[in-house]
């Protein structure tokens, strides 16, 4: 049933909107949220995860990883200037960006799987917005106290106390923001060097600009915008709506147990009523400012803090904990109907995501095992397709590119097979009877011209498949002989 209302005429005869939360208007004033500190296993888990994740973020650029031949010794470094991505024992070149793409696909599939299975795990525990907001709230409590004290302070007039507390909070916030922006730039240049340059005023404009930008976004997103980011800016809540279903385990108010809710005085019987005493503990603890008892909703980031808040109360009123907990809509509905709850962690959706995840993992692993620091590319000249020499023999020209990504200079023995070559030429080099040796410096690529001459009477077709191989003098390489298929084109092509 729908209620027809008149917004423009200002309520001519109609009752004011029932419980809509806002009156008629185009813009909504933001409701301030003062989340109350809770204690419990999820809060402890989140503190632990926050420490680990912040340590990873701030600490990673300072890990050293020795590399030979003058390469940077920073374990994780995105070196735009030289086109390298160093990650511990791996170093990726720009043309290997598909490994990064693969990682992103893995991350996406991982999110799909965890969301279908356990709801918005990412939003609740791992998203930087959640982690930094949690940290900023911690600082806020440090200076302004818990929920009630903060609300009092917000209402109080401006005086020395308020100025001191708010000022100190914002100073610490700014410091954290600056440290966050500062840590970001260390991923792109040698951290100790940049640290010194940064304070000496010698770092690049890009470094200072990135620092300023990340400082600003950290301060504004974690300090002031908070839940607005999740509700209005982030696309993920909408996307996740398509991934969770009735069997997903989400932070859920078990209304089968809680209803009918109502205030409860000590000593009153618990028969004929639900366990929810309507104490609002879950609501005041919520960093998103919502009521979990309304069920699964867009604003809920599944941070699980309401579970701790409710458990604290349940212990106090001597009822079993877990009125709010990880549960599925299906299970709750079935219990409410007096049936046995069923859980289906393995269902088409999760199986499909898991299969896709395993498939991409396998492809990535295979790709990594096949990865060799050496590469061979062959491009046959297309103008001219071939050259007829004075004695009638046919010559084809090829550009052969050899890449040496190892930390030592390497010599490749390049051969040309598939056609009876009479003469192999590589201008600037001296071919021997079997091919030509090409030395490529460490971390370099080298292009050579390869000209193969075949007597016309030895060619039976216009297009003869040919192959260029390059054998590298590195006994430890995963693939020692690289091969590239190409064609040998002759007169017949014109017929």
């Amino acid at each position, binding site marked *: 049933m729908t209620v027809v209302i008149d917004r423009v005429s200002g309520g001519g005869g109609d009752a004011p909107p029932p419980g809509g939360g806002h009156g008629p208007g185009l813009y909504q004033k933001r409701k301030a949220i003062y989340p109350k500190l809770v204690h419990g296993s999820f809060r402890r888990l989140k503190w632990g995860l926050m420490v680990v994740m912040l340590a990873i973020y701030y600490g990673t650029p300072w890990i050293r990883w020795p590399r030979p031949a003058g390469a940077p010794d920073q374990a994780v470094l995105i070196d735009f200037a030289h086109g390298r991505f160093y990650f511990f024992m791996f170093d990726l070149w720009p043309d290997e960006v598909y490994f990064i793409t693969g990682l992103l696909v893995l991350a996406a599939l991982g999110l799909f799987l965890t969301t279908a299975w356990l709801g918005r795990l990412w939003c609740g525990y791992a998203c930087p917005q959640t982690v930094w907001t949690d940290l900023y709230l911690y600082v806020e409590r440090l200076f302004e106290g818990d929920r009630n004290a903060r609300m009092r302070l917000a209402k109080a007039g401006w005086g020395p106390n308020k100025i001191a507390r708010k000022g100190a909070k914002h100073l610490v916030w700014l410091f954290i923001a600056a440290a966050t922006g500062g840590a970001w730039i260390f991923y792109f240049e040698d951290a100790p060097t940049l640290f010194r340059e940064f304070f000496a005023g010698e770092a690049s404009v890009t470094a200072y600009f990135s620092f300023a930008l990340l400082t600003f976004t950290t301060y504004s997103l974690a300090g002031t915008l908070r839940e607005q980011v999740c509700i209005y800016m982030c696309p993920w809540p909408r996307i996740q709506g398509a991934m969770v279903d009735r069997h997903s385990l989400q932070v859920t108010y078990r209304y089968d147990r809680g209803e009918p809710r109502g205030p409860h005085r000590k000593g009153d019987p618990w028969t004929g009523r639900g366990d929810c005493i309507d104490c609002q503990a879950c609501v005041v603890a919520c960093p998103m400012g919502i009521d979990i008892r309304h069920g699964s909703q867009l604003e809920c980031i599944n941070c699980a803090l309401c579970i701790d808040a409710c458990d604290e109360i349940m212990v106090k009123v001597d009822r079993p904990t877990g009125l709010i907990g990880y549960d599925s809509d299906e299970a709750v509905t079935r219990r409410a109907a007096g049936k046995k709850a069923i859980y289906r962690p393995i269902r088409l959706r999760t199986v499909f995501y898991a299969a896709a995840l395993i498939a991409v993992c396998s492809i990535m692993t295979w790709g990594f095992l096949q990865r060799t620091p050496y590469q061979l590319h062959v491009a046959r000249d297309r103008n001219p397709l071939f*050259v007829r020499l*004075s004695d009638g023999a046919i*010559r084809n020209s090829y550009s052969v590119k050899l890449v040496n990504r190892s930390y030592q200079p390497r010599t490749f023995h390049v051969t040309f097979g598939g056609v009876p*070559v*009479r003469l192999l030429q590589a201008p600037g*080099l001296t071919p021997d009877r079997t091919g030509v040796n090409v030395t490529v410096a460490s971390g370099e690529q080298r292009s050579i011209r390869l000209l193969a001459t075949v007597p016309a009477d030895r060619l039976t077709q216009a297009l003869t498949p040919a192959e260029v191989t390059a054998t590298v003098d590195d006994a430890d390489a995963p693939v020692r002989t690289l091969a590239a298929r190409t064609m040998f084109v002759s007169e017949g092509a014109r017929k």
Partner: protein
Amino acid sequence: MSERERDDHSGVETTGHEWDGIKELDNPLPRWWLIVWYACIAFAIVYWVLFPAWPTLNGYTPGILGQSDRVNVANDMKALEAQRGAEGVMLEKASLEQIEKTPNLQAFAMAEGQAIFGNNCAPCHGAGGTGGKGYANLRDDVWLWGGQLADIEQTLKYGIRSGHPLARMSMMPSFGRDGLLKPQEVNDLTEYVVFLSHRAANSAAVARAAPIFAAQCAACHGPEGKGNQAVGAPNLTDSDWLYGSDRKSIHDQIWAAKGGVMPAWIDRLTPAQIKAVAVYVHVNSGGSGQATPVAEAAAPATDNTAAATPAAQ
């Protein structure tokens, strides 16, 4: 008076739009979004003042920062030229052989040479350098004036019959037109040239022409007709023909000789640029500069004489 419908589940008004039963809720925007919008407008006004923004009748408002993409591009081009100049100096200092043997220099010369070749040489010699009738093929093993690096550089610098004092210079006489030989003798000579290039020819005519060839042609083309690169006389025994291989083309050339002209590039290109093109042409021709003898190619077991025979064969 428009009336709004309220969704009874969420308590929010709808926009009144409906798609297959799905209705759009009309949630109000957060107020800070409005503020961000005003901030964008303020930014735009500041931008108009600082940067080129509005078109006027005769141009545009330049903005007080003086930003101009045209000036930026011009500066970038200048920087690029300075950089190329530095690399050009490297080409100038090194010898042609050094350029060809040093990987970085060869790569630079090939890239530079390709661009210069495309701009200056391709109109006659073709983008691929394969030439055409009257224009030499630079990709094969036949060289009228020599295919060593130094030969190519000299031809590039001074040209052929270009009018430059140091140009490659030679002129084949027009035997028929100028009455040096009788028409029958020109016909006989044509048969003789066909015979030289290992094709079937009238043996009587060949016999008649042999003394004429020795007297008139051997001075430049050699007693065996193998040519002489010092005077740009082509080898008549191979299968490469600048003006055509059929009897009529050969006859026409003996009757009224054509001599192609290549300009001197010394005044148009820098020495470094000429070196780059010389290396480019030399590398693309295989880098040997030696014509493969016909006898060797005609031998059946040619594989044994190869400089390189892949083990796979």
